[in-house]
């Protein structure tokens, strides 16, 4: 706790603390101002922050650009959906199973794709994600292309996920837990090996680190957290569909991580907030300027990303001053 106090004196610390505080009391605010829609935006921001944080574990710390991360969200979501459709409603069963399946899948495709580098790694992770995507489209018994309406996970006596505010707070607590884990991970032995391998793989191997194994564990771990985000997404809409793991979503996740700041602890949160803020508010803004322009908000968003990629390579995080450690 003591080290949190000096952190609060930096601009980054202040902004982050305010953001977290705002997110913590969001349901109270949206209720007070009767803006229920904003709560659903907030829920999505929090869930996608978890997803982006899980991608940040391998992309940010490991330097591995996975272009198939949405597959883990889909696997998490579909595990919940299928179990629910088969009559297993308990979250105590659904959630661990969903995460275990995603970790197993992460281990499997990690073992294959981590043998490649650079653009080949991007392509092979994309290929595996597409495989899962088409597999889910083909699940006629579970809705196929149309997706599947599900009933939300049950945690009897503990929490009712149908209650919007409770569900939001659950997501928020899980986001905090994920970010806490990331903050420990970065400075752990494991995190140092992962970051060292990003910096200079040959050197780490020469030092005696079996780099492949560490990356594989990181990949599986990130898959587990990705599945958590998928579980929450499924419960948010009481609905799963192949669309949640389309390559566009994998791309969105990369955009969020890059936008927030690759490898920055709170980068995924900044990135998700910015991403959804733009997605929600840019179209109406453009419509104000000229009726119908809102449809083309991505024409503005695209160049915005290019500018970030060119001039703010540390993403939004770098606007908050230099990073330490």
């Amino acid at each position, binding site marked *: 706790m003591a080290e949190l106090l000096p952190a609060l004196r930096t601009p980054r610390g202040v902004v982050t603390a305010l953001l977290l505080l705002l997110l913590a009391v969001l349901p109270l605010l949206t209720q007070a101002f009767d803006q229920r829609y904003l709560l659903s935006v907030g829920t999505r921001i929090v869930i996608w922050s978890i997803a982006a944080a899980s991608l940040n574990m391998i992309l940010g710390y490991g330097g591995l650009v996975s272009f198939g991360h949405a597959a883990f969200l889909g696997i998490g979501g579909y595990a919940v959906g299928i179990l629910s459709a088969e009559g297993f409603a308990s979250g105590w069963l659904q959630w661990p199973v969903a995460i275990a399946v995603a970790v197993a899948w992460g281990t499997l495709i990690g073992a294959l794709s981590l043998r490649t580098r650079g653009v080949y790694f991007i392509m092979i992770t994309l290929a595996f994600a597409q495989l899962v995507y088409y597999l889910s489209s083909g699940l006629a018994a579970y809705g196929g292309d149309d997706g599947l309406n599900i009933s939300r996970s049950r945690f009897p006596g503990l929490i009712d996920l149908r209650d919007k505010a409770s569900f939001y707070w659950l997501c928020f607590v899980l986001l905090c837990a994920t970010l806490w*884990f990331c903050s*420990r*991970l970065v*400075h*752990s*032995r*494991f*995190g*140092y*090996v992962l*970051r*060292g391998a990003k*910096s*200079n793989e*040959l*050197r*780490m*191997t*020469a*030092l*005696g*680190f*079996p780099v492949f194994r*560490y990356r594989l*564990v990181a990949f599986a771990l990130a898959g587990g957290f990705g599945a958590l985000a998928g579980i929450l997404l499924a419960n948010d809409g009481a609905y799963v569909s192949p669309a949640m793991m389309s390559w566009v979503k994998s791309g969105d996740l990369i955009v969020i991580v890059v936008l927030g700041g690759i490898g920055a602890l709170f980068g995924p949160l900044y990135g998700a907030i910015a991403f959804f803020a733009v997605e929600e508010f840019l179209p109406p803004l453009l419509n104000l300027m000229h009726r119908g322009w809102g449809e083309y908000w991505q024409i503005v968003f695209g160049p915005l990303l290019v500018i970030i990629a060119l001039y703010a390579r540390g993403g939004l995080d770098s606007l908050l001053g230099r990073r330490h*450690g």
Partner: protein
Amino acid sequence: MPVAGSIRCWVAAMAEPLLQAEALVKRFGGLVATDNVAIDVQPGEIHALIGPNGAGKTTLVSQLTGNLRPDSGTIRFAGRDVTRLPTHARVRLGLARSFQITSVLREFTALDNAALAVQAHDGHSFRFLADIRRDQRLRDLARRNLETVGLGPRAGVLASALSHGEQRQLEIAMALAVAPKLLLLDEPMAGMGIEESQRLVELLRGLKQRCGMLLIEHDMDAVFALADRITVLVYGRAIASGAPDEIRGNAEVRQAYLGEEAS
């Protein structure tokens, strides 16, 4: 030549070499980069490997470290056959390498670099939560290695901000952390000024008691100041091997490589 003779007797008297490569062959297409080379290093010995550019020195070292697999031949290290062992497993046995191209982790501080090197030899690193910066034992060992190579005062500096010579010193501090039985030094003096080179020569001489070394180097002053034995590689073949005086006097070597430098 009594000196050379006595060294050879001493070498012959040793039980088993630390490193022994025999009949190594490595081809790249039609090019034979390593042509039936045998080389060994005794404990506590500095064995220098010299040869003109393109002689296949780095190819040879890469096979010794496990980055390249020889087409045929065997490599024994510390009493076991390591020919098919991957790099990291060889490092675990005590075979450490410093690179021809300076290869530190640029985004990490000197201390972090040295600490990672210690960590590599300190059991597995599947520990996800404990803060490494509070691991005093790890930090102390790393700091001691930095001090051994004279980088103590520069511990907190980012590796990318160290001078070329300092990065070389850091490389050696990292190699030391894995408690090596043998150091493979790939052109440690490359790009160094005279003063820096001399400091490194002293440093390596001091380390000789700790571990054997295979030294690849173009700087002949350093080679003749340090080496107990020298092997000359030309076009992938070892054309001569012996004590420094012997090599200096070898006509074939003078013609092929040393040229005017030795005359």
